[in-house]
């Protein structure tokens, strides 16, 4: 049994069907990649799984418990934690305090980190601990987003386009940090558009299109799949990926 099991998940915004019956199984020992064109429902999937938006139908279960629509903070407390596509922080507070807030929430249920400083070290933000989060350059802000999520001591981390807006060397450094997570017992589910990075980093790829899962498997297999190639390269679709 996988730690996260999603069954027949549906989400409708008015007339827009953003998720149309998604089934997923994600463990905590892998990096699973989610790809798909813009608007295919990737972010919505994270939002519904983590309780930001209520599901229209279907179920989400985590470690054998039904967590459908139980509320975002309760899901985070169960160590299913996500980051946001829009880089987020507590902008008026110091970098250290940002991470400390998350760490203190995680600590109530036993933290894997002895101190917030360890997390800053891990993501490479230690020298900026006293900087105000709102004044960080974008690359550091992305790292802070990861550090805050890690602070909660996640068992599965859902990362929504953590590399978006980073330059090549920053994105590579970020990928290196992400690759260190599964060996420490932190599963990763990652949305990104960079196919080279995704095939390097991910043990498994899932492809969404119009709110439906159209392919799943090893990165090489999935990228060779004709349906996937049509979605990304087909004549009637704007290529969303590089």
């Amino acid at each position, binding site marked *: 049994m996988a730690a996260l099991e999603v069954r027949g998940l549906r989400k409708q915004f008015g007339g827009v069907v953003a998720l149309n019956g998604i089934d997923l199984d994600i463990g905590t020992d892998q990096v699973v990649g989610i790809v798909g064109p813009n608007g295919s429902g990737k972010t919505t999937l994270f939002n519904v799984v983590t309780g930001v938006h209520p599901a229209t139908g279907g179920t989400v279960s985590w470690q054998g418990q039904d967590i459908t629509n139980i509320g975002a903070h309760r899901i*985070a407390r169960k160590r299913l934690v996500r980051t946001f596509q829009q880089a987020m922080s507590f902008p008026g*507070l110091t970098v250290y305090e940002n991470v400390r807030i998350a760490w203190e929430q*995680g600590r109530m249920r036993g933290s894997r980190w002895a101190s917030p400083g360890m997390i800053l070290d891990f993501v490479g933000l230690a020298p*900026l601990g006293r900087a105000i989060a709102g004044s960080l350059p974008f690359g550091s802000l992305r790292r802070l987003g990861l550090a805050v999520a890690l602070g909660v001591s996640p068992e599965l981390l859902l990362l929504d386009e953590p590399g978006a807006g980073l330059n090549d060397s920053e994105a590579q450094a970020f990928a290196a940090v992400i690759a260190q997570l599964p060996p420490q017992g932190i599963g990763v589910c990652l949305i990104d558009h960079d196919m080279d990075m995704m095939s390097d980093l991910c043990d498994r790829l899932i492809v969404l299109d119009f709110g439906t899962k159209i392919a799943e498997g090893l990165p090489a297999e999935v990228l060779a799949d004709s349906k996937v190639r049509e979605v990304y390269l087909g004549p009637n679709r704007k290529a969303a990926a590089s």
Partner: protein
Amino acid sequence: MPMTDNSAGKTGAAPEGVRARDRLALLTADNAAVPLPAGVQAITAILLAVLLIALPWLGLGYRFLSIAITTLYTAIGLYGLGLQFGQAGIMSVGHAALMGVGAYASAILSVQLGFGFWTSLPFAMALSAIVGGVIGLPTLRVGGQHYIIITFCFCALFVVVLTNGGTFTGSATGLDVGSVTPLPGINFDKLSNNYYLVLAALFLALSATYLIGNSRYGRTLRAIRENEQLARSVGINVDLHKLGVLMVSGLFAGLAGVLQLYYLRHISPTLFGAFPSLYLALMVMLGGARYLYGPLIGAVIVNFLPEVLNLDPVDSRIAYGVCLLLVILLLPGGVGAGIKNVYCAVRGGLEKQGGGTNGRA
């Protein structure tokens, strides 16, 4: 990867070659999150405590001491407002009404049941807390701007209810109480003793504010203020904490209201209406809601300004308006922010002169 330290710009510019822009930055910078060394905090606290304790012995006269008492109980109410607005980001423009709940609860308990100051105090504080929470319920559904309107409406409604409450609330005339039940050897009819009573309560409010501000609870509130969605995503129960802080703020308001009642010995509805509420909002913004001494500074300025400048009530209203405009334009963090920014700039300058290499890491 290159990571530049941009924080210097936010933490008070160096004073060397201060140009107009730097001078403005000195006012508008936001250094609330910059931690102060324990030594500086301790010295400030001790100096302030000594000054406040010595005040009745400085021979400043009856009138001065009266205004000082008003200032201090107002400041206690403001510490609650400072908590909900400064820490959690929830502004209220009906806070005087919440003080009024405490004051009237205590007065009614005195008139109807013969409860004295000490016995009615816990009930009054609890009732203010509950009412604070109940007014807060709609905030969970609607945004902060709506909550401001709701607090204003509550304030108006409260005055209407009091004015039409017959003998129970004393209608427009209000209610009278006796003096504070004396403690062994301390008679609170003496003005300086009443001052010390209020001062003791202020120290409690200040200590509570300090402890909350430096606790996990305080950080939780700031997280909600800064980014609700992110706060939820790290496991914070945002709704619960919003109601919680409004109730804690209500406790402060109730305490302030009872102290006000027993200082004035007579209360009437107009004390808790729209104008007093707006003054409280003005004071907390003027002083700086995010700074430990901000609410106290705000209360001192607004209560002593008419006295120092010899203003009549109409002039002083104009002066308050001008103050508020100046603060919004020049000192968005309040006078407390201005003081801290100057401190950060001076310290930044000193660090630059001595060594320079260790920077501010």
